[in-house]
């Protein structure tokens, strides 16, 4: 399959992730949508590393996976801390810092 297939599929997945981040209210599902966006970029990098015969795309994908793992761990810890004090899973209700 040509490189336009990679571009179109990863653009679709990225936009689905962006929609999910904007329309969902559960913070866990919002995190999953962020994972979708990161994964689509990974797919783009790996596909282009195949087409351009270079290893840099795969190394970049590896770095993105590291950042994503760190981000998920810290984000889930924050969600857990918020849930322990509020017992509520809706991002619209977390407005204590709002002035």
């Amino acid at each position, binding site marked *: 399959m040509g490189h336009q297939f990679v571009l179109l599929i990863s653009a*679709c997945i990225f936009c689905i992730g962006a929609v999910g981040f904007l329309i969902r209210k559960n913070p866990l*599902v919002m995190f999953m949508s962020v994972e979708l966006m990161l994964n689509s970029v990974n797919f783009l990098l790996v596909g282009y590393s195949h087409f351009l015969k270079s290893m840099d795309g795969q190394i970049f994908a590896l770095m993105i996976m590291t*950042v994503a793992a*760190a981000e998920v*761990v810290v984000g889930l810890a924050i969600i*857990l801390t918020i849930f322990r004090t509020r017992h509520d899973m809706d991002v619209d209700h977390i407005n204590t810092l709002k002035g």
Partner: protein
Amino acid sequence: MLEFDLFELTKATVTLLVGLTAVLASLGVILCSSPIYCALYLIGHMICLALLFLLYNAEFIAAVQIIVYAGAVMILFLFIIALLGGKKEVQEPSLERSLAVLFVATMLGELFLSATVGSTKPIEGGFDVETVAEVGGSAKAIGLELFSRHLVSFELASVLLLVAAIGIICLSKFSYIPVRRRMK
């Protein structure tokens, strides 16, 4: 030219099918009301992406995808859902949601345009399939590149993981008590 390459045709069909399955699974992630189903769809999506990585000759990245994402990260998600209780989310249409969908649809149109119209001159590197096979597989080729040209970013990634580990220890151990005191 009546004869065609059956291997290439099969590979293209499988790539197309797996790519479409990945897109459908990501739709399932954002459309399911219950977070546990979202997590299961996300696992399916990640396995599809690992298959696509395999089809694009990136065996090492596919293995890392399965181990790190479908293994570690999604198990973490499932444990958090089990801990917090996966309550169903009421999804009703509203003005903000339609605006969000419209905004992202515009973005998707722009991405499609830029993907199909423009053409750039590719700068090719030295790692085609034969060279990678000669070196000894994609893991060894990635290692050779990672530990020579990308050594600084590798060390920075290790520092990032250390900072994340220290951060979640601080979050889960120290931040709870002051918050409780403030709530009284």
